[in-house]
């Protein structure tokens, strides 16, 4: 399983086998919501904050 570094606390975050780009994962160390930026190489970024909204 691939690992990536948490951009907030630099802890190791493990990717599941079926992790997809764009998926939201949580850093077990600091609990931050992270977004899978790429699989090759495994990279994480901060997930955009929660904005409640609707479209038609």
């Amino acid at each position, binding site marked *: 399983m691939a690992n990536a570094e948490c951009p907030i606390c630099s802890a190791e975050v493990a990717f599941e086998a079926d992790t*997809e780009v*764009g*998926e*939201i994962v949580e850093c077990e160390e600091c609990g931050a919501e992270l*977004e899978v930026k790429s699989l090759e190489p495994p990279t994480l970024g901060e*997930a*955009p904050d*929660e*904005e*409640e*909204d*609707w*479209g*038609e």
Partner: protein
Amino acid sequence: MLVIKVGGSAGIDYDKLADDVAALVRDGVRCVLVHGGSSLTNEVATKLGHPPRMVTSVSGIESRYTDDKTLEIFEMVYCGAMNKQIVERFQRRGVNAVGLSGIDGRIFEGVVKGTLKIVENGKRKVLRGDRSGKIERVNTDLIERLLDGGYLPVLTPPAVSRDGEAMNVDGDRAAAMLGAALGADTVLFLSNVPGLLRDVDDETSVIRELRVGDLESAMRDVAKGRMKKKVMGAGEAIAAGVGRCVFGDARIDRPVRRALDGEGTVITP
């Protein structure tokens, strides 16, 4: 001043609606119509090989993922087929209607979301390039010019962002904010259900009356899917000064008149 939102789902009878609204306009009632077009949009999008992708946000609200191609199809159906066919129905009845989207004259102006947090196949994801947005302002100058000229404004999404980009917005919310901005006495939400139903499968279980204080629980316990947005919209409209909102049935005869007479779910402050 009366704002009437009519949905775009199957089963809605636009001729009956046009008969009723034409009669009101002839009686001198200042009306503004807002319409949807979701079911025809799904049909056309599928035929054009770009089927609709509905997504559910992490807070459980369903919306259409609107990429560039989808927005073009959305404009073709809402601003083209639906809007002009509704305007044509009024012209046939001697009512001088004028069809506009929220981009025209920046009637509906707001902020593009761009990114959405959704749940898909059990996974939480970030979805980018979504040209949906939230209305923050209704510019009523153009609408008032039309009303003063004796025209019937027939409005439709999309809206426009501050920097002039078209964006998909919820028609119910647009109608609610329009009602507030125009100081409407009543905003009607007509759709293919007789009102807010206690039991979604039982069309006789219409909740007859609600106070704005009950909307929170109604949102949580009763309203499902699209009805959630109507309830949200109604709450905002009343909070901004609209006299009352009524959820009525757009499939029956004289749908506007009967909703005005309280047939459906009446929401008051």
